C-alpha cells in the first residue's frame, strides 16, 4: 500500500518576490519581475530583458556563513539554498544538531539545468591562464549539478538520499514527483524537493542564439506579450528557485503540521523525439498521454480538474499546449478548467520554472484564488477556438479550489504532470 504524501512547507526565490508572503502578494496583483538589463544590451543580446530575484548581502548572511560566502559566485546555488531552507523552516522542522546523527528519514532532490555558470567562467579563465592551482577549494562545490542538495544536506543534516535531477524545463515538476515516489514507497518520511536556475548572460545566451526569446520589448519591459497572447513572440529568460517540503500524510497529521496540499499522483514520460517531437519541440501525443497517466495515477477523472497551471511559455507552442490539454481532459469551451501561466510575470525561469510555478499553484489551491494572466488581453485565435476566454482570466479570481493540475515540458521532449488536492 502506497503512503499518501502531502506538502507541508514552501520556499520561493522568484523575480517578483522572495519569500512566500511577498510572492503571494505579487502574483495576486500580477506584478512583473521582468526588467531591462544594460549588460545584455552591451553584450549584443537580441533579448535585453531578463528576470532575476533581488537578494541583499544581509539576506545571504541569514543562510550562509562568512566563510561559505567567501569567493561564492553561483547565483543558482544561492537561490536554491534560500528556497530550500525556507521550505524546511516553513514546515517547522529543525536541522540535526552538530553532534547528533543525521536525519535518516529526510532526503533531498534539488534539480538544476546548468549549475554555477558564473563560477565555472571564473575557473575557465584561470585554467586557460595556466593557473589551475589558483582555483581554491570551492570551485567544485559551486559548479556541481548537485550543489544545492549538497549545501542543503549539510545545513540540515539530511541522512536519506541527497541528490539532484535534471530534465531541462521539467526539472522542478520532476523533482516533486521523484520525492513523492520516494515517500509513497516508504523510503523516507520527508523529502525536500525543488529546482533552481542561475541568472545572467551565460545561461541565457544559448536561448538568445536560438531566437526563442523575444526581441520586441527591450524598451517596454512591462508590456511583453504574455503566454497565450496573439502577440507572443518568445519568452523572457528568468531565474530563481522554488522548493517544497514533502512528507507522509500520516507523519504530518501526527505532528500537527500545516498541510498545503496532497500530491495525488503524477506522471513523467518522453516523446522520444518522434511524432513531431525533437530536441526542442514536444511530441503532442506524449503530452496527452502524460496528462492522462497523471489523472489515472491520481485516481481522479478529468472532470474534477478545476484549474491548470500551464507550462505556456509565450512562444508559438502555446496553442498546441492548450489543444493537448483539451484533448487529454476531453474538455473544451466553457467546460475547460481555469488556466494561467506565471511566465507572464517572471519570464521563463528554465530549470527553476517548474518549481516556482508549482509553489504558485499550491498557494492558489491553499488560499483559493487564481492569479491574473499578464499582458494577454489579445488571446491567440487558435486558443479561443478551443477554450472560452473566461477560462483565461486577466484579473484575480477568488474561488475555492479542490483539485488542480500542473505540467512542465522541456528540451529532450521531456514531460511531467502532477495532480494536487486540497485536504
Amino acid at each position, binding site marked *: 500500500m502506497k503512503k499518501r504524501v502531502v506538502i507541508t512547507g514552501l520556499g520561493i526565490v522568484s523575480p517578483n518576490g522572495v519569500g512566500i508572503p511577498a510572492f503571494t502578494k505579487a502574483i495576486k496583483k500580477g506584478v512583473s519581475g521582468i526588467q531591462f538589463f544594460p549588460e545584455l544590451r552591451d553584450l549584443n543580446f537580441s533579448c535585453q530583458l531578463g528576470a532575476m530575484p533581488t537578494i541583499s548581502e544581509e539576506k545571504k548572511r541569514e543562510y550562509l556563513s562568512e*566563510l561559505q560566502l*567567501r569567493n561564492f559566485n553561483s547565483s543558482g546555488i544561492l537561490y536554491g539554498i534560500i528556497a530550500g531552507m525556507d521550505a524546511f523552516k516553513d514546515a517547522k522542522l529543525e536541522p540535526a544538531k*552538530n553532534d547528533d546523527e543525521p536525519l535518516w528519514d529526510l532526503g533531498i532532490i534539488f534539480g538544476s539545468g546548468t549549475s554555477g555558470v558564473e563560477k565555472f567562467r571564473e575557473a575557465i579563465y584561470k585554467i586557460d591562464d595556466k593557473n589551475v592551482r*589558483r582555483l*581554491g*577549494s*570551492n570551485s567544485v562545490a559551486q559548479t556541481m549539478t548537485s550543489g544545492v542538495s549538497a549545501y542543503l544536506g549539510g545545513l540540515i543534516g539530511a541522512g536519506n538520499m541527497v541528490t539532484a535531477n535534471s530534465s531541462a524545463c521539467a526539472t522542478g515538476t520532476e523533482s516533486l514527483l521523484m520525492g513523492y515516489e520516494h515517500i509513497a514507497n516508504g523510503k523516507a518520511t520527508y523529502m525536500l524537493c525543488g529546482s533552481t536556475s542561475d541568472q545572467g548572460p551565460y545561461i541565457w545566451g544559448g536561448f538568445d542564439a536560438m531566437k526563442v526569446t523575444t526581441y520586441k520589448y527591450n524598451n517596454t519591459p512591462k508590456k511583453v506579450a504574455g503566454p497565450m497572447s496573439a502577440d507572443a513572440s518568445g519568452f523572457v529568460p528568468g531565474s530563481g528557485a522554488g522548493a517544497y517540503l514533502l512528507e507522509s500524510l500520516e507523519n504530518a497529521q501526527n505532528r500537527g503540521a500545516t498541510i498545503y496540499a496532497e500530491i495525488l499522483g503524477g506522471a513523467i514520460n518522453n516523446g522520444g523525439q518522434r511524432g513531431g517531437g525533437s530536441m526542442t519541440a514536444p511530441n503532442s501525443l506524449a503530452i496527452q498521454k502524460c496528462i492522462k497517466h497523471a489523472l489515472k495515477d491520481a485516481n481522479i477523472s478529468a472532470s474534477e480538474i478545476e484549474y491548470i497551471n500551464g507550462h505556456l511559455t509565450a512562444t508559438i507552442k502555446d496553442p498546441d499546449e492548450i489543444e493537448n490539454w483539451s484533448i487529454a481532459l476531453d474538455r473544451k469551451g466553457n467546460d475547460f478548467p481555469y488556466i494561467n501561466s506565471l511566465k507572464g510575470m517572471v519570464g521563463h525561469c528554465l530549470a527553476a520554472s517548474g518549481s516556482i510555478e508549482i509553489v504558485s499553484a499550491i498557494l492558489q489551491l491553499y488560499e483559493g484564488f487564481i492569479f491574473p494572466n499578464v499582458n494577454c488581453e489579445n488571446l491567440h485565435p487558435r486558443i479561443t477556438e478551443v477554450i472560452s476566454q473566461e477560462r483565461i482570466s486577466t484579473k484575480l479570481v477568488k474561488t475555492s479550489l479542490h483539485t488542480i493540475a500542473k505540467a512542465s515540458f522541456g528540451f529532450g521532449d521531456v514531460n511531467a504532470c502532477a495532480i494536487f488536492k486540497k485536504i
Partner: protein
Amino acid sequence: MNSEEIYRLLEPIIKTYLPEDISAKEINRNSDLTRELNINSAHLVDIVLDIEDVFNIEFKNEDMESLRNVNDAISLIQQKISG
C-alpha cells in the same frame, strides 16, 4: 621579516577558516590546523593561496605536504621570503 611579524600577518588568514565553534583565541604557534583548530582540510589550499597573496610568494606541492601547524607555515614563509 621575523617570525613575530609573519605571525601577525598569518593569524588573520587562519582566523577566516576557523569553524564557527572554534575561537580565534585558540590559535597559537603549535596549533595543528586540521586536528586542533578543526579547519576543513579542503581549506588548506585556500590558506596557502591567501598566504601567497599576502607575502607575494609561491608554494610548491611538496611545501603543502609539510604544512601541519602554524609554525610549519611560518618557517615555510621564511624560507620563501629569504629564498
